[in-house]
């Protein structure tokens, strides 16, 4: 049996290297706004964590009686909107560029899992906000979970939802997003589809003539 320590050491040398995480060059095709969408999604996640930590430090209902925390709660709300907005644009970009090609299937799969986990992560946040939207969605969505045999997840229990929202789900999501980004760094972003050059260059020839 192979030496696990040697294998881990070898893998860590690549995964944790400055070359992996601090690239000084990138492929020529990976430029422009389309290639900012993943980073914009990750940046939104960072803002969510920062604003979420501030909210957690001050208690789940602090926004309701403290003006500063009310503002932090607002940033948390808009950051989740930004997160899903950029994630959705990122999803469209990676789909239409066939980003799973070249052995990047696992990167795609992890992205899809991150999307799936992000949904309950956001939803549990809406539930602990404590307003009418929280009440309504807790009692409506409980039937779905109960029907699937997932009744142990008690959407009407604010304590359980608080734990899910600030610990269980964000940690899970951060781990999945971390793996997703690691694979992107290791494998780089997918190169273009090979297109026959004449199809693109025909107009150029006319232009040159």
């Amino acid at each position, binding site marked *: 049996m192979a030496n696990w320590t040697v294998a881990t050491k070898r893998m860590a040398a690549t995964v944790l290297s400055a070359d992996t995480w601090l690239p000084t060059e990138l492929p020529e095709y990976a430029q422009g706004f389309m290639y900012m969408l993943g980073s914009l999604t990750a940046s939104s996640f960072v803002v969510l964590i920062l604003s979420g930590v501030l909210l957690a430090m001050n208690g789940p209902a602090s926004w309701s009686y403290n003006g500063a925390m009310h503002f932090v709660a607002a940033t948390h709300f808009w950051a989740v909107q930004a997160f899903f907005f950029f994630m959705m644009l990122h999803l469209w970009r990676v789909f239409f560029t066939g980003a799973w090609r070249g052995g990047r299937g696992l990167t795609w799969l992890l992205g899809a899992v991150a999307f799936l986990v992000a949904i309950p992560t956001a939803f549990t946040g809406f539930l602990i906000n404590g307003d009418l939207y929280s009440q309504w969605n807790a009692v409506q969505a409980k039937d779905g979970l109960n029907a699937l045999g997932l009744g142990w997840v008690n959407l009407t229990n604010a304590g359980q939802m608080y734990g899910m929202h600030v610990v269980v789900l964000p940690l899970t999501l951060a781990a999945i997003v971390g793996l997703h980004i690691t694979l992107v760094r290791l494998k780089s972003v997918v190169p273009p589809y090979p297109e026959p*050059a004449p199809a693109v260059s025909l107009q150029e020839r006319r232009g040159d003539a």
Partner: protein
Amino acid sequence: MNGAHPDVAQDYQQVPEDFLKHLLGTLVIVIGLVVAASLLFSYPEKQPLTVKAYATQHPIAFEQVLLRALDGQGQIANYGPPYNHGTGSVQSFVQARVGVLHPVNAATDFVLKPLRMAASINPAIAPALNRFVGASATQQAAWEAQAASALGHATLRGGSVIWPASAAGPLPQLLNAGLSLGRSGLMSGALTRNPAVFTRFDSQNTLLFLQGTPLQTNPATQTLAGPNWGIIHPAVNGYPAAWWMTVPTWIYQWPAVANSAAPDALALMIGFLFWLALALTPWIPGWNRVPRVVGIHRLIWREYYHRRGQVGSRHHERSPVSVRE
């Protein structure tokens, strides 16, 4: 190696990049957008429905909620797992197999226990409460049936519910006492009471008490209802909500799902299949070639193809090949 993947271009150059600047740039953009939106729009808050508000605004309907909890006709009273052994909301065998995880006895938890607590403040309630609790199940059911009929003809006078003469035993007095408790603002405390701990993390019983008629007939929840595409709508008009739930919400609108005996189980399972198709895209033949056929990648990589076309047509040169994998 890219060489093993014929559907991946190999002729491209590496260009200089400042990755940290890129990351910091996107972070600044998001912070700017989020702070601006927060300053301009704050965020949507809709006053929650409280037991006190419902009891104050809808006294007769409130007593009907109490009565349905008591006679087992309420949604939670007859819900089934994970709350009790009812059958009214059991959608699948899995739900039935899960069993009772969060026990709720609607009659006891929603009505009798709160009334017992109220009786310690207002001893006048105690005789009626003792009479009801001490009666046989048959007698209780008979009173409940009479009360259900009589309450339909009750009137309001000076904020009080006036019951017509009936054979409902102690129930008119008990339900009026329950209304007083609801109006006092103390009932949510009685509903969430857990003598084992002083913390009040579990809001289950207050929400389940309100989950039927009180929330479903609330004018503010009508746009949030399932047939109106539910969760993707905000409680406060003009704000975004959970729009990323559009696909499962859309599935709820399918007649076959909406009219099913198990709409929630069906909608969520179909929604999961949609996600599965997305997640397994790389390995689904045909579907994984759709992007190439659609051709939007030509727009996204327009400049790359443009440069490559120029190079190919003018000089038949290849850019230096850079293989990243």
